């Protein structure tokens, strides 16, 4: 499988606090890859670095053969909006829906880079079919949606640009277990049927690793373990620290 995302030895600092140290990862096209770790391990920082929201202190990130982020050569790093245009969509932690806009307008924003109005309408319809609750609420302000509905809305919004790589930051955060299950089954479908590569960050390690072909474990800004998803589920250290067994 071709590599779509290559993270090469990156470091990120907030002031004097180091958030990521020499992190390297690979995501192959068509896979679901997950990154697990405790609160504050640096998971969100990693995703924000990929989309150019935080600058790198060291290393570089390559997407589909193009260097998109580079330390020191900030002039050669792409800005966040350009990275989005290259085909990376991030569903941010806490969903970050445009609360004062309707579901439909949020989806329009997801398709900001698409200029073909007919294609936008077609994709919106696909999203309403895939997440029927969004279709029912399309004219409603997003702030009136429940947490689970907002999460689906955020995923649908990200899919409107037909990304090659979908980044999900804690899609299960704060949601009831059944809704989390539902969201993960949708993620599986997105990956298998729409051929979207998925890189997700989760605290719910069991669910994340079960869905993934490959996984990484992040601790204090460092990758401490990596293996196939199922193998990590069996790993003693993972069991002890993240699966509560």
């Amino acid at each position, binding site marked *: 499988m071709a590599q779509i995302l290559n993270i090469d030895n990156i470091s990120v600092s907030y002031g004097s606090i180091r958030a990521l140290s020499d992190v390297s990862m690979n995501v192959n096209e068509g896979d679901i890859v997950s990154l697990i770790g405790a609160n504050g391990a640096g998971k969100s920082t990693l995703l924000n670095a990929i*989309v150019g*929201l935080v600058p790198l202190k060291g290393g570089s990130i390559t997407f589909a053969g193009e260097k998109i982020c580079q330390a020191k050569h900030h002039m050669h790093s792409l*800005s*966040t*909006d*350009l990275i*989005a*245009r290259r085909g990376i*969509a*991030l569903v*941010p932690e806490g969903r*970050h829906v*445009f*609360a*004062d*806009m309707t579901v439909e*307008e949020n989806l*329009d*924003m*997801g398709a*900001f*880079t698409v200029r073909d109005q007919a294609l936008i309408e077609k994709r919106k319809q696909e999203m309403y079919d895939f997440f029927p609750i969004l279709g029912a609420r399309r004219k409603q302000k997003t702030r009136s949606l429940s947490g689970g509905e907002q999460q689906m809305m955020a995923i649908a*919004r990200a899919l409107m*640009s037909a990304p090659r790589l979908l980044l999900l930051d804690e899609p299960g955060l704060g949601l009831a277990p059944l809704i989390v299950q539902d969201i993960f089954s949708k993620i599986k479908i997105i990956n298998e049927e729409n051929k979207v590569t998925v890189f997700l960050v989760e605290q719910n390690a069991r669910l994340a690793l079960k869905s993934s072909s490959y996984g990484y474990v992040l601790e204090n800004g460092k990758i401490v373990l990596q293996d196939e998803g199922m193998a990590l589920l069996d790993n003693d250290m993972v069991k002890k620290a993240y699966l509560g067994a």
Partner: protein
Amino acid sequence: MDTLTLYMQYIVNGLTLGAIYSLIALGYTMVYGILKFINFAHGDILMVGAFVGLLVYTALTGEAADPGVWTIIAFFIAMLISMGFSALLGVLIERVAYKPLRNANRLAPLLSAIGVSFILSNGAAWIFGTQSRRFPYPFANDPIRIGAIAITPHQIVIIAVSVIMMILLTFFVNKTRMGKAMRAASLDQATSMLMGINVNRVISLTFAIGSALAAVGGILASFDFRVYPSMGTMTGLKAFVAAVIGGIGNIQGAMLGGVLLGILEAVGAPLLHIPNSMRDTVAFAVLIIVLLVKPDGILGKNEREKV
């Protein structure tokens, strides 16, 4: 004239004044919506807009043209050119004086804006002198009587032009791709970047639109107030008050706040027997009351951390 008609007349006058406040308040509120920053040079943009409008108009019609079809056409040409010039000036100011300070201490862009304000008003005084000029009426200005109420053609133009501008803006913000991007950027800047929106471009557009509207406000205001280098100070300040009354950051709020302030000022001053030279106190008294009773403004949201 009985008291009721008198106050009806004040309301008509207040509506005219309020329409101008609304146009100018929109620029404050739109910029605040995205950057959470008060552009204190906005009032001076309206002054520049008025000067450009006046210069283009007199260049087209000559010094003392009699009102006719040509003066009306010339007036609207002058308005469009002034809008374009002011839009460019607004974008330029943002690039040079505010953008480099975007990640600086919040006080820095504010001080920079005050600096720009002085540069613009002093620059205008240097170029045009400090004496005030009259904007010649492009229309025959005989009042039209509706019952006992008199409304002048330029009042009608002020209200009509303002209403058209506000309808266009509402359509732009709600229905167009860039308009929606502007709303998205003011709701959540980082997330709008994730959508592929170039936020710098959206910010430039916001300054362009706000400044163009200020130019229209400046030209319309010069019918009543004449044109002079410091004309933007008090009108700009009152439009800012209007934006705060309506709920700063909220576009409908700016429209509502402007009209409300205009009417309160026109009605409140005679009602409370405030002499004409002190009628500005009404606007600021209203501001203080609003800040005490509903600090987020009439249509504002409770977003304490952003204040």
